[in-house]
């Protein structure tokens, strides 16, 4: 007999939506609406200038202000962002890393202004710099200085803001960069070990309190479409973390050994083709992190169905929130104990992952740990190789992606009938208005107090004192994000991380249609080299602040493997730098990759500067999340070709590139 009465249920996870755009005021409005729709926590998306320590008036911020998140330049912006939202009642997750110390300082200062004692604040700072070097690319400083900021934030919150999660170790971005489940487990764990060892080495935490630090470590995990394996991965995480905390750190309190994690499910697998299918993918992926009571996520944010097309609108985000609410409140999932305890299949697969991940953990520790394995390029290279293998499997059909390489025929979707309205567009005036507001702010503040605060920051940076106190004082004094970061850049310098591409080896099969295609492309390039006198040379550039380098890396590797000489510049280069490189390197072709949505500002600028430098005849192609209307504009502006996520067949792109060089040579 079915029972319709009220039943005992577990408390649901925290439901969030990663959001923020344009300005602090616009984002504040969005947060209020989201909370009214039943969202139970906030997840702040900052724009790239804020994440990489630039103000809106910096040349490098051009085209990026308010694009992928909200710009927060100073305490005034932070106050506006949380206007009418009492911070003692919020649970706020901030996706912030290189500038985490600064943004937390602004948050603490804004709370103090609201009359809230910092000790009651709850939320999370992402604060995981390792994965920035490996995948996400918003790092600023060299590893040693970055790790110092990381540990400063941790030791500060453990004593002053005890309910705060000072770090969210991210395996999420590792999967986005192509990590296999084993790699995701292993590299997240070695990152956590690296951070805990560094905290220990500061000597600031008494031995008796170290369990508290371990207990505050949290993780941010990805869930992909192979959801049974992903479910086992979460269970493997729980087991491995218990092992690490017990054996390496001697933590006796089981609560402090709990694997606490939040999730954003996979964006990498979302498709531009038949995008409505993404809703089904998102739901399946959510199951992987909710079905196991013993390894259930504590907070979930879901991407929107149309993310491969552009920025999602509020309605798109609401649809994803509803999926969470239906699973938690409408279904009976939360009424049961762990569903898989004792399942031979799940336990065997979990054990396989535990063993393979543990072996890789040992491998990295043998190489000196996470920081060393970043600096040597070891981890990055493994990720680049895995991602190349993943793309090849999709390209040759070994891995089915519905609507992309199988079942591609379908009726036109009413959801995307008017494609340009099926995404959110950010007002292009945001850039200018933010610059004007910043100028006003600088005019109205007490500049003597700012100077003094910056001098103190500089002094502290040269010692081993905690950076938090001086940063909170700087926040109150009206210092800006750019000023804070530039002061520290002067002391510590900047860091350009290994790209992992040069050493990456990609296995190719020696026969079959794929091998024949490669052989054909190689032959064409060999012939071109003879005709042109030198081997065709391609410059792969990533203009702007966007650090998502997967696309650029895979194009670079593929181009080398078909026979181009490829100059890869790494992330975060300005249009000026790209043009200077093109000139000095004598390239025949330029490929630009931009995923932040700032293509309309950056690509035409590169084209214009090339023309000014006398390189107007060098063809330019662009790739990224570029809506068709924008692509048309770019082509009108002189871009030879535009590629989007639906162009997954790299061989076809290579063939186009060779055509372009060939045609250009013939024209000379």
């Amino acid at each position, binding site marked *: 007999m079915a029972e319709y009465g009220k039943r005992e249920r577990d408390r649901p996870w925290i439901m969030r939506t990663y959001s923020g755009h344009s300005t602090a005021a616009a984002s504040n409005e969005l947060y209020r609406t989201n909370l009214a729709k039943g969202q139970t926590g906030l997840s702040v998306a900052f724009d790239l200038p804020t994440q990489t320590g630039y103000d809106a008036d910096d040349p490098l911020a051009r085209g990026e202000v308010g694009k992928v998140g909200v710009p927060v330049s100073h305490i005034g912006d932070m106050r506006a962002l949380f206007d009418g939202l009492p911070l003692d009642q919020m649970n706020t997750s901030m996706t912030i890393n290189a500038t985490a110390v600064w943004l937390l300082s602004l948050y603490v200062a804004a709370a103090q202004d609201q009359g809230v004692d910092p000790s009651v604040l709850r939320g999370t700072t992402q604060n995981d710099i390792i994965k920035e070097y490996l995948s996400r690319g918003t790092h600023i400083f060299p590893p040693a200085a970055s790790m110092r900021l990381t540990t400063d934030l941790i030791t500060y919150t453990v004593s002053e803001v005890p309910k705060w999660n000072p770090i969210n170790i991210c395996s999420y971005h590792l999967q986005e960069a192509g990590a296999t489940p084993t790699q995701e487990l292993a590299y997240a764990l070695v990152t956590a070990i690296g951070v805990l060892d560094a905290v220990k080495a500061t000597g600031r935490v008494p031995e008796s309190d170290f369990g508290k630090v371990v207990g505050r470590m949290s993780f941010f995990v990805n869930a992909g479409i192979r959801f049974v394996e992903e479910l086992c991965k979460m269970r493997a995480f729980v087991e491995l973390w218990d092992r690490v905390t017990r054996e390496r750190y001697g933590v006796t309190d089981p609560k402090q050994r709990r694997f606490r994690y939040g999730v954003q499910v996979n964006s990498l697998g979302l498709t531009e083709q038949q995008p409505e299918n993404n809703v089904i993918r998102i739901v399946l992926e959510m199951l992987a992190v909710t079905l196991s009571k013993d390894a259930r996520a504590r907070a979930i944010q879901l991407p929107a169905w149309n993310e491969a097309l552009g920025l999602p609108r509020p309605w798109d985000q609401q649809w994803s929130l509803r999926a969470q609410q239906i699973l938690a409140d409408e279904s009976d999932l939360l009424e049961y104990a762990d569903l898989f305890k004792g399942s031979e299949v799940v336990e065997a697969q979990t054990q396989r992952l535990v063993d393979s991940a543990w072996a890789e953990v040992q491998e990295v520790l043998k190489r000196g740990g996470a920081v060393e394995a970043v600096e040597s390029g070891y981890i990055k290279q493994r990720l680049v190789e895995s991602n190349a293998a993943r793309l090849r499997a999709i390209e040759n059909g070994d891995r089915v992606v519905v609507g992309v390489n199988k079942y591609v025929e379908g009726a036109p979707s009413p959801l995307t009938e008017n494609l340009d309205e099926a995404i959110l567009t950010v007002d292009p005036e945001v850039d200018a208005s933010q610059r004007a507001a910043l100028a006003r702010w600088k005019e109205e503040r007490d500049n003597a107090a700012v100077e003094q605060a910056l001098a103190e920051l500089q002094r502290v940076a040269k010692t081993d004192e905690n950076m938090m106190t001086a940063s909170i004082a700087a926040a109150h004094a009206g210092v800006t994000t750019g000023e804070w970061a530039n002061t520290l850049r002067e002391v510590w310098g900047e860091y350009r991380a290994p790209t992992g591409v040069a050493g990456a080896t990609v296995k190719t099969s020696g026969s079959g249609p794929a091998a024949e295609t490669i052989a054909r492309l190689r032959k064409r*390039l060999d012939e071109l080299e003879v005709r042109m006198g030198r081997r065709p040379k391609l410059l792969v550039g990533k203009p702007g602040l966007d650090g998502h380098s997967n696309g650029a890396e895979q194009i670079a590797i593929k181009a*080398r493997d078909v026979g181009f000489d490829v100059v890869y510049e*790494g992330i975060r280069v300005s249009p000026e730098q790209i043009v200077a*490189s093109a000139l*000095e390197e004598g390239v025949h072709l330029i490929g630009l990759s931009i995923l932040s949505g700032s293509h309309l500002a950056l690509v035409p600028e590169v084209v214009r500067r090339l023309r000014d430098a*006398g390189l107007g005849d060098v063809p330019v192609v662009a790739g990224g999340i570029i809506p068709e209307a924008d692509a048309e504009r770019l082509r009108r502006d002189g871009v030879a070709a535009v590629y989007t996520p639906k162009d997954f067949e790299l061989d076809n792109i290579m063939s186009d590139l060779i055509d372009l060089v060939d045609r250009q040579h013939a024209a000379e």
Partner: protein
Amino acid sequence: MPPSDPHDDAQQVMAANKAAVSRALNLVEDRRPEAQTGVTKLLAELKDAPKAAGGHRVGLTGPPGVGKSTLTSALARSVRQRGRTVGVVAIDPSSIRSGGSLLGDRARMSFDPSDEGLFVRSLATAGVVGGLAYAANSAVRVLAAAYDMVVIETTGVGQSEIDIVHVADTVVLVIQPGSGDVLQFLKAGIMEIPDILVVNKADHDELAQRAVSDLRGALQTAHAVGAGSGQDVNWETPILATSATQGTGIEELIDTLDEHRQHLDATLAGRRRQGEVQWTLDLFSRKHGEHGVSTLGGLAQLKARAERDLDGGQTPLSLCERLSREYVTALGKTP
């Protein structure tokens, strides 16, 4: 491309006009037979460039992963701050399978794109397995005509060090603490002894100090067993510690480079000429092997020939081409 005048082109290269330098590099990379006359003419025009005679060609080499690109970047920045201009040739290997290459050195370098006094060019080894790029010698000549210091950065332990001696006035070998390979090479006397040894990534004092003293011991052993004969006996190889990411030790490195350049002053022209002779012979023998060398009269005769012809305005590349043609003709005559 409209035909250009080698004299004008050379003047613009010497004025360090970036577009002209780049065009000149494109030309010396061009392997088409019809381009070779232009290459020879251009290099002849650049031969007596004021910068070239007074300048400094620094070879930076070492195993993969020791931070050479980052060090090159830090070095170039500091040399620029001293008011001198810098040209960089960064050499990476070509893939044997595809012939393509990934030239990633720029990714580790930070530079100001508006700086007219810094120029970076990446070259692929292009089939010269284990060695410097085909056009490296010519590219160095172009950059040396335009910039005060030329840095040639290349990866590897073995063949490329021997190559780099042919194009660099000063050879800097970069290693990192704890890399036993280089020690073994030194002890075994296999490796030519570089002019300067740099222990990079010396972020950890203790480890770096140990590496420096280990190297000092190995150098003594190497000298004792007579390794590096033919090396400069009046120059004691300094061992420096740097951290390219933290910017320490860079100023000392520049000072030491300057000292070595000064030390070379009297012998420099001869050293450069010997390098070109050796480069010519290497190019030729890699292409045609021992049979090629013996067909044209043996090593000693070829060497004398190279010295004479290089004095007469040939470049290693053009002379090698000429020798190749002679060899092919001789082959035709052999029964």
